[in-house]
């Protein structure tokens, strides 16, 4: 596998966003994943979402662990720093990075093995700390790079490519995240970009740890009959609980947004996540309602998608720590080191 630079072609009349950048400015190196991989569709959705949000590329940090999913940060926003860490430990590196500079936009890409097996501990604790970032799980139920072992998200009773039946219960990323106190939990499907792009935008705008579980079929090892993470199965069993749209800060909030099953979630920065209930039974602001709904539909083999839970008022890591508004890494040394006289004074108590 090699590192391929994508040839940059300037097309006259290419559309620019609010900061004058084109979609191409949000792309990265060429993907080396298998043709048809769900992850590449997610990458495309990320490019679209970040471009639409007019995010300054240098303010983004692209964090990942190990696995197919974790390769993808190389494939979008070439102007952002990326960090391909060790297996299952992306959350801790992201936590440290965002502790040091709270102005950065954290985007973590992980997989089902990376988050639900080797990194299950860090997955739980980044949620608990409510680190302000998008935590995106590209979920295919299988270990691709090591050739087709079941992952912890594989459903009980589903079969591997070789016909082996998975006996163990699966770890459900969204139910786990909700029950651990995540402040934003959503689920999407790599094959539904129309739904995924606004989901990503909402998750990034959310001021806290936003967990987005995206079903992303593995065309090589898990797209067969008997798999519950295949394109065919997911299309057939996918159910929209809510639909989301992100409305930027200065946009007008129309009265109609409050009508019926549509309601706005106002965020601190003035932007609004406009939620529309696709199913009137669903209430994404109540944890037990969300979990009960997920469980009811899980029993029928259905995959519930949309914004599944949101509480925009949970204090994030910096609020919990009462750290200063300015990024810690930018604080002048003079404000950090108390100096000679203070040291002498302090040592009077050591005599």
């Amino acid at each position, binding site marked *: 596998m090699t*590192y391929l630079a994508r040839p940059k072609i300037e097309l006259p009349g290419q559309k620019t966003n609010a900061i004058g950048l084109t979609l191409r400015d949000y792309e990265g190196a060429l993907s080396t994943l298998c043709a048809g991989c769900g992850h590449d569709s997610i990458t495309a959705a990320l490019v679209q979402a970040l471009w639409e949000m007019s995010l300054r590329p240098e303010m983004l940090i692209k964090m990942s662990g190990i696995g197919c999913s974790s390769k993808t940060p190389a494939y979008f926003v070439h102007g952002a720093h990326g*960090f391909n860490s060790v297996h299952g430990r992306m959350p801790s590196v992201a936590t440290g990075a965002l502790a040091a500079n709270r102005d950065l936009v954290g985007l973590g890409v992980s997989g089902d093995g990376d988050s639900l097996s080797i990194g299950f501990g860090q997955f739980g604790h980044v949620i608990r700390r409510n680190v302000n970032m998008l935590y995106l799980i590209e979920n295919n139920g299988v270990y691709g790079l090591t050739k087709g072992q079941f992952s912890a998200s594989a459903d009980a009773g589903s079969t591997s490519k070789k016909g082996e039946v998975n006996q163990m219960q699966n770890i459900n990323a969204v139910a786990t995240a909700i029950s651990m106190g995540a402040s934003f939990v959503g689920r999407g499907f790599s094959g539904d970009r129309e739904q995924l792009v606004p989901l990503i935008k909402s998750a990034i705008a959310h001021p806290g740890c936003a967990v987005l579980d995206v079903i992303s079929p593995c065309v090589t090892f898990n797209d067969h009959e008997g798999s519950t993470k295949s394109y065919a199965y997911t299309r057939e069993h996918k159910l929209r609980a809510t639909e989301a749209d992100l409305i930027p800060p200065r946009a007008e909030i129309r009265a109609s947004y409050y009508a019926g099953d549509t309601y706005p979630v106002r965020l601190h920065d003035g932007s609004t996540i406009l939620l529309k209930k696709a199913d009137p039974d669903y209430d994404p602001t109540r944890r037990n309602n969300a979990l009960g709904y997920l469980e009811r539909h899980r029993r029928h083999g259905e995959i519930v998608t949309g914004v599944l839970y949101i509480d925009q008022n949970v204090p994030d890591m910096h609020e919990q720590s009462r750290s200063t508004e300015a990024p810690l890494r930018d604080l002048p040394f003079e404000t950090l080191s108390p100096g000679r006289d203070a040291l002498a004074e302090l040592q009077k108590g050591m005599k």
Partner: protein
Amino acid sequence: MSTTQNRINDFVLKIATVNGTGSASANGLLMKALFRMGVPVTGKNLFPSNIQGLPTWYEVRANHQGYMSRCSRVDVMVAMNAQTYQKDLAEVSPGGFLVYDATWPRERDLNRHDITVFGVPLSKMCNENFEVARVRILMKNVMYVGVLAALLDLDLEVIKQLLQETFSSKPKLIDANLKAIMLGYEYAQKHFTCPLPIRAETMGDNTGNILITGNEAIGLGCLYAGATVGAWYPITPSTGVMDAFTSYCERFRVDPETGDRNYMIIQAEDELAAAGMVIGANWVGARAFTPTSGPGISLMSEFIGFAYYAEIPSVFINVQRVGPSTGMPTRTQQSDTMMCAYASHGDTRHPLLFPSNPHECFDMAVRAFDLAERLQTPVFLLSDLDIGMNDWMVPELDWDDAYRPDRGKVLRPDDLAEMDRFIRYLDTDGDGIPHRTLPGDDPKGAYFTRGSGHNKYGGYTEDSDEYQEILDRLLVKWDTAKTLVPDAILSPSSKKTKLGILAYGSSDGAVIEARDRLAELGIHVNYLRIRAFPFSAEVHEFLEAHDTIYVVEQNRDAQMKALLMLEANDIADRLVSILHYNGMPIPSECVVTGVSRHQGLEVAA
């Protein structure tokens, strides 16, 4: 040495108590009283891995010559713990003294005729004079301070002053403590011949010195170095580092009006996460560190290799305890030397700093950040439980207000603006150190940080030449590190000699004292104290200049000796190990015996 003759300001006092009875403040009072009388003093806390109920000892060594190491003699034992009485009695050196609580009778067979035993009805006096149960327990400890003040001729005015300062916010406690001290003092004066031939005498006021633990000094060093992110998982014996950093930050880094904090301390879910957080924060450009101990380093090792290969500054503080495995968490050793030098899989090596006392802990903590950022690599500060948790008398810490952090080769937007192209892992200066950029600065500086094989552009590679180019450059950087780490310190003998001692860290005190004893025996040795790995030029010169080199260290497997043999040629037959690894701080006798035996002399311990 006989203990019956007059011995002024040269004694070891050992107090045996039960964990959780509040003896720490009484023992601290004794230490400080001696300190303020100008007597060089050290205190060693020998404690169990337990919260309440198990035996614990505190050793105070007063020595007018300033010897700081542990001494295996016990001149005065205060036996407050019935559970360990028999063992404590046996430990008193011949001619020594023992104080015990005579409220209840002792068994007859528990006696010795070669020492003097003083019974003081401490519990009885406490019960008669104090009402509340908890106060009675606490005052029993303070009362033995009074007894010792009479026996050892401690300055009562100094003790009173210390009580005033300690309890300035709680005046009621001053009265109770003073009452307990005077009860003990007067009882001893009335019933025993005071003072003892072994006693203290004012010899100055210790101006210019402080009492401090290594953990406090490291916490303070991190504060002064400008660290803003600390991530950790609690582990004995390193917890005191973060406790100290936290309290200093609360004092110096909180905006008095808004309450905003100029720092963030993250208690991680485990050491793996703590390492990841430190690496993430440093990657973004903050100074970040983690304090831990051996088991933590084992867990962090994957990330340590990552930071080595991806070239991310990071500071790892290892307050070593006894291994292997969980080992003895409350005992001391230097047994992580080898592990830290080469932590992680693949070809990795890391700079290590070896402070030998809290004063150096402070200086080297600051230096660790400078080195980590200059070299863009993990740097280890290797303290140990003896340095970290015991009370040391050291010269006052000093700070140069002109100091500014060495942030190393960081390109900010202005620098990038002048460049055609930024290449992350390119050695432009020939020192093996590339330039780095910080997230949040400029798209032109963007690169991909990865632990997978990469070329100089930071791109993924499986190309042999591209891979090897990076690995070889890291060796060039290692050579640069040799010129940047703290140099070794030579203490030459007054006589010309071909014998040498190499030691590091907390073995220093034992070596200093041992060299004086050995000189009295006619054995003269030069001493080089290693302060860092990789070894600087002086270490190699010292190895070449001596026929026999004793390597003193506190581990079983002669880890420093092994490092020396890996780094220097043809020295194996000239290195002689002197090892101490039972978990107690190394006493000078260990070094005296080791060297003299090897030189064909038998010395009485």
